């Protein structure tokens, strides 16, 4: 560090002892010194933070591809914002998939006769507004010793404790029919409930049945709400 003060001065300059010329010279020299060294420090740390964990996290900025070439789009801010929007959408989609998966988890039962769960599970669909739809997944596992045929899921409808109802036609299945389910194989069923526009708020209960599986049934519930809670 260079000495920029005047030790013979009566006072360092903080309380009026130094003359204006000395103070001005000091300020200019100090600030020149400060800025030039600061630039070097900043450059060093920009490099450091850029290198830190670069192999672990891709933040979508300037980067190289597998061949070491810099992607032409790396500095295009419109592209990066689009990329960020797509990632947000993807994360939302993945969250939805996780919710579907979590909904299906209780239903992953193994049965003895090539059919749906053992009945202890319950399919509880996400909340839905009137006019909207809600869905969940059910698995059929054939752990029996024989092939199963013509498995057609259906429901007699859902109703609330006070008698409000969602008719069977508002509950659909994809696929609507599983023609054949070989031994030790599984089939996924997507259950979708479309709440009528005039559906009264409340928890609707029903039961999921499958033709040709006389011993099996599964409780089904969906709540119709005026406003869906944010996820």
């Amino acid at each position, binding site marked *: 560090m260079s000495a*920029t003060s005047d*030790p013979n001065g009566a006072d360092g300059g903080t309380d009026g002892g130094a003359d204006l010329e000395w103070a001005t010279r000091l300020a200019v020299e*100090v600030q020149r010194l400060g800025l030039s060294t600061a630039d070097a420090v900043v450059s060093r*740390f920009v490099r450091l933070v850029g290198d830190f964990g670069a192999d672990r*996290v891709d933040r979508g900025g300037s980067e190289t591809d597998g061949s070491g070439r810099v992607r032409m789009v790396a500095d295009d801010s419109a592209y990066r914002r689009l990329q960020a929007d797509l*990632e947000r959408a993807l994360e939302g989609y993945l969250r939805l998939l996780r919710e579907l998966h979590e909904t299906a988890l209780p239903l992953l039962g193994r049965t003895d006769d090539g059919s749906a769960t053992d009945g202890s599970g319950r399919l509880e669909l996400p909340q839905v507004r009137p006019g909207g739809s809600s869905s969940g997944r059910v698995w059929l596992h054939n752990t029996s010793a024989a092939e199963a045929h013509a498995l057609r899921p259906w429901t007699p409808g859902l109703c609330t404790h006070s008698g409000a109802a969602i008719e069977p036609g508002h509950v659909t299945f994809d696929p609507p029919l599983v023609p054949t389910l070989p031994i030790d194989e599984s089939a996924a069923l997507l259950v979708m409930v479309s709440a009528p526009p005039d559906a009264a708020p409340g928890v609707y209960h029903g039961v999921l049945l499958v033709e040709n599986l006389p011993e099996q049934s599964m409780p089904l519930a969906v709540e119709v709400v005026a406003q869906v809670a944010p996820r």
Partner: protein
Amino acid sequence: MSSRCPAEPYRGLSHYGSLAAEECRRQLRTSGDASYLTPLLDDYPSRGGKGLRPSICLGTCEAFGGTAAAALPSAASIELLHNAFLVHDDIEDASLLRRGRPTLHRCWGTPLALNAGDGLALVAMSTLGANGELLGARLSSLVMREFEFMSRQTVSGQALELGWRMDNRLDLDADDYLDLIMRKTCWYTTVLPLRVGALIGSWGTADLDPLVAFGFHLGAAFQIRDDILNLTGDVSRYGKEPLGDLLEGKRTLMLLHLAAAADSSDRSWLECYLDGERQDRRLEEATELYELMRRYGSIAFAESFASGMAEAARISMEHAFAGLPDTPAREFVGSLIPYMIERDA
């Protein structure tokens, strides 16, 4: 540089600081109730600080187009980590006062205070856990990476300063000093809050490199002003013991300037003074050291240096915030530049 009305930074600090303080309290409440720990965890945060770091984070997030709510866990985490650092710093420096009251280790003893510092750091890290749900996996991992890099810089800077004192190093120049404060102060006080705020506000699209320069200049101005206040500030407002840095032998810009500018006789006296332990130094000697700094212009040097840093901060902010709309949040961040060198607490 033109001076701005201090009402603007103070209004912003009050607004953002209170949001972060409430989130800190909530996080501390959820960490449970443990004997010999909970009262210590609550102590420093309840003394009320400036809320500078979380305010920079929240203000920058809004300036870059985000909401304060999105950055709130990160901002609270910064503040809790700051309090953790303070607890340990006070032990390392044998400080007597913090925010106008006895330091935590003086109230509870060093072992419990050390443990509370660890506890605050853990609560700070767990506070970041909320980011997964709030920001998604990718963005929250980027924020975590920023915290990890900052933590490494902070502890390495603190080690450097303590090592310099242990070895009684005085052969240091401006580059050494700036490198030190970049690590131990600037990164967690200004650079991290700016970068994390911009990351969240832009949903990961902002160019963070220019924020290193802005944060460094802003943080350097803050640190140098802090060192000056330790010598000249009103203890009732500054909250630390007068001349504490001189008693500790802290390598401030003023001290390094004095070591370079002093004649051989004064330099010998200085080396002898710094060679001792803190408990061996008397207030009269620290006062004599302060007088030497005044006589050699070390304080004027530091004030001028800080003004240069503030001017550099103004220029680098224009680059770092280029293209952003002129919002109250952006104005608040800009108002912190004059605040850094004019504040008295």
